[in-house]
C-alpha cells in the first residue's frame, strides 16, 4: 500500500479553507415524552472543508444525537424543536426525503460504532461497497464490481478481489470498518460523520483506522465530524475540538489549545480523568453523572459536580444564571461557558 509518509506529520496537506461546510446553529432536540429536559440544547458547531472536528463528552451528553440529527436519523420519539443545520448552504432539516436520499452517501456519509452490525449479512461485501456508487453515480453493475475492488484495495484490503465476492461474516471488526469506510467514501462525500468509529475495535486496529481516515482527509479534502470520548484520539486527529456536557457545548477551540490550556472546569476534569494525565495507578473520576444535569434549567449544568465553583465560592452565581459561551482572550478560536474561565466579560 502506498502511503504518504509526511502526511501524518503535516496534517495540513490540504489546509482547511474558510468556507463553512456544515453549520449547526442553535440546534435543540427534545424527547417530548421523556422527562429531564432536551437532549441537545442550543448547539453551535461549524465544520470547514478539509477539517476534522471532534465532539467529545461523556455518555449521554448528546454527541450521538447531534450526529443523528445531521443525518436525519433521529429516532421517531425525538423532535427537533429549534435551530438549523446547513450543509453547503442547504437546510438539512427542511429538505424533502427525496433530496435527503440524494444527499446521503453523496455529500454526507456516516460511520458507526459497530461496523460488523452495519453490513447486511445476506449481501456480498462488494455489492454493499458499491451501493452508494450505483445509487448516486448511476454506475452499471459491472463497473460497480471493478470499482468495489478498487475501493477495497484503497482502504487496505490485502485481497480485494476475494473480499468483494465474500459475505460479511468473514470480516474482522477492523476489516468491517475499512469496508464501511470504503462504502461511505465511494461516492466522494464532502462530510463524514464518524460516530465513535473505533470504540469497538482493539487498540492496534484502532490506530490503523484512524490513520486511514486521516489519509482520506488529506487525499480528498474530506471534512470529518469525529464523535468520541477518547481524548487520545482527539489529540492526535482533530483540528478543532468541541466539548459537550448535558446537551450543551461547554468549550470549543483549536485542539492544541483545548489540551494545553483548558478553560472550562469540565474539560479540565475530563483531561485529569484521562489516562494521558492521570498519575500512575490513580485514575481521577468526576463524581456524579451527566444525565440528570439536563433537567437543570437555571444556572450552569456542571455546577453540582464542579470543584472550581466550590473553591472559588461562586456556587450561587453559577446557580442563578447560566454563563454564556464566550471567547477566551481576544482571538476567536477558543470559547468557554464558565464564569471562572479566562476572559469572561463581567467576572462576578
Amino acid at each position, binding site marked *: 500500500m502506498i502511503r504518504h509518509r509526511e502526511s501524518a506529520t503535516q496534517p495540513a496537506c490540504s489546509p482547511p479553507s474558510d468556507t463553512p461546510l456544515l453549520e449547526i446553529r442553535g440546534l435543540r432536540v427534545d424527547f417530548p415524552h421523556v422527562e429531564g429536559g432536551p437532549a441537545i440544547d442550543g448547539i453551535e458547531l461549524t465544520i470547514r472543508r478539509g477539517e476534522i472536528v471532534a465532539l467529545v463528552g461523556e455518555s449521554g451528553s448528546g454527541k450521538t444525537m447531534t450526529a443523528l440529527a445531521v443525518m436525519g*436519523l433521529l429516532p421517531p420519539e425525538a423532535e427537533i424543536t429549534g435551530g438549523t443545520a446547513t450543509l453547503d448552504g442547504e437546510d438539512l432539516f427542511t429538505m424533502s426525503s427525496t433530496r435527503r436520499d440524494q*444527499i446521503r452517501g453523496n455529500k454526507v*456519509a456516516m460511520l458507526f460504532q459497530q461496523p*460488523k452490525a452495519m453490513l*447486511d449479512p445476506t449481501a456480498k461485501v462488494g455489492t454493499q461497497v458499491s451501493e*452508494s456508487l450505483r*445509487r448516486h453515480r448511476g454506475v452499471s453493475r459491472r463497473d460497480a464490481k471493478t470499482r468495489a475492488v478498487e475501493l477495497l484495495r484503497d482502504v487496505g484490503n*490485502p485481497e480485494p478481489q476475494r473480499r468483494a465476492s465474500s459475505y460479511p*461474516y468473514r470480516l*474482522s471488526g477492523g476489516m468491517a470498518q475499512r469496508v464501511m469506510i470504503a462504502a461511505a467514501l465511494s461516492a466522494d462525500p464532502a462530510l463524514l460523520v464518524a460516530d465513535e468509529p473505533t470504540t469497538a475495535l482493539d487498540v492496534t486496529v484502532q490506530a490503523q483506522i484512524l490513520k486511514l481516515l486521516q489519509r482520506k482527509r488529506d487525499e480528498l479534502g474530506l471534512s470529518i465530524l469525529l464523535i468520541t470520548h477518547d481524548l487520545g484520539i482527539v489529540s492526535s486527529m482533530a483540528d478543532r475540538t468541541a466539548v459537550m456536557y448535558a446537551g450543551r457545548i461547554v468549550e470549543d477551540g483549536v485542539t492544541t489549545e483545548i489540551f494545553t490550556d483548558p478553560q472550562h472546569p469540565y474539560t479540565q476534569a475530563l483531561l485529569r480523568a484521562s489516562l494521558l494525565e492521570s498519575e500512575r495507578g490513580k485514575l481521577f473520576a468526576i463524581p456524579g453523572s451527566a444525565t440528570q444535569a439536563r433537567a437543570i434549567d437555571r444556572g450552569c449544568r456542571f455546577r453540582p459536580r464542579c470543584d472550581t465553583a466550590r473553591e472559588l465560592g461562586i456556587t450561587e452565581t453559577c446557580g442563578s444564571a447560566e454563563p454564556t459561551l464566550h471567547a477566551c482572550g481576544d482571538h476567536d478560536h477558543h470559547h468557554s461557558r464558565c464564569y471562572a474561565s479566562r476572559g469572561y466579560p463581567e467576572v462576578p
Partner: protein
Amino acid sequence: MPRRRPRPVTAEHPRAQAAEVATPAAPAAPADSPTARASPRAGLFDSVRGGFRSPPWTLAVGAGALAAVVVILLLTPWIAPHDPAFQELSQRLAGPSGDHWAGTDHLGRDVLSRLMYGGRFSVTIAAATLVLCAVIGIVLGALAAGRGGILDELLMRGVDVLTCFPDVVVALFLIAIFGTGYGTLVAALTITGWTPFARLMRGLALEIKSKEYIEAAEVLGCPRWFIVFRHIVPNALRPVLAMSFLRFGHKLITVGALSYLGLGVQPPDSDWGAMLLDAQPYMERLPWLGVLPGLAIFVTALSVTLIGQGLENRKLPRRRPDAGHAEPASAEAPLKGAGP
C-alpha cells in the same frame, strides 16, 4: 428450571439416554448416584426444551422422497403403462395383475397410470398456488412493515378477516360464483392462502428494520423501497422459505379436498382428490382404490413438510457464533508497517 421428578432410564427410553449423552451442559453427577442414571434434564421434556428439534435426517429423507415423486411425475408420459383415460369396461374393478399393477377403477381405467397423471395436476396446482401465495404475501407483508401507518393497518386487518374463514369454505364460495376451472381454483386458493406469508414477512421485516445495517443503507442514500426489497426481504427469506415448504402439504391437501368435493380438477382430467371421490363407493370391497391416491397425497405432503422442518431447524450457515475470529490476524498485518 424446576427440577422434575426423576424418571428411571430404562431400555424403553433409548432417546433419554442418547439425549443425556449428547448434552454436554448437563451437570456432571457421580456415576453411581441415582441422579446420574435418571437425570431429570433428559427424556420426555427434552424435545420441549430444544424447541422440537427434528432429527438431522429429516431434510435428506424429505428431499429424497420429493425428488422421487417429482422424477416419476415428470417422466409420466413415457413410463405410464396405460392411457389414463382409456376405459376397458370388461376389466372394471379388476384387482392388481401383471397388466394393471394397481388394478382398474369402476370404468376399467388403469389406476397406476391415473395415479401418475393425476399427481401432475395435484402437484402443479399446489405448487403454482404456493408460489403465488408466497410472492403476494412477501410483497404485501414487506410493504405493510416498510410503509407502516394506515396501509399496514388496512392490510393486517384484511389478513385478520381472511384468516377467520376456513380456506376451503372461501374457495367453495369463490368457485360457486366464478365456476370451476384451473384459474379459479388457483385464484381461490391464493386469495385465502397468502395471509400467513404476509404476517410472517411483516413480523420479520419489522425486526430487520431495526437492524443497524438498515440504518447504514439509509445513510448511503438508499430509498426506502430499495432498502425493503434489497436488504429486508433477502434477510427474511430463509424463514419464509421454510414456511413455504411447510405450507405446501397443506395446499396439496386443500386441492385434493376441493377435487374430492367435485369442485377442483374436472373430468376427463383427474387428480388424487378426484380419484378418492371415484373410489368412495368401493371403499369396502376394493380399499386400494382409495388408499393409493390417499397415500400419494400423504407421501408427497410429508416429504415437503420434512424438507421445511429440516430447513427451519438448520442454523444459519452464513453466520458463525465466533465470527470475530473468522478473519485471521494476517489480514490486518500488512498495514502495520504502513504508518510512520
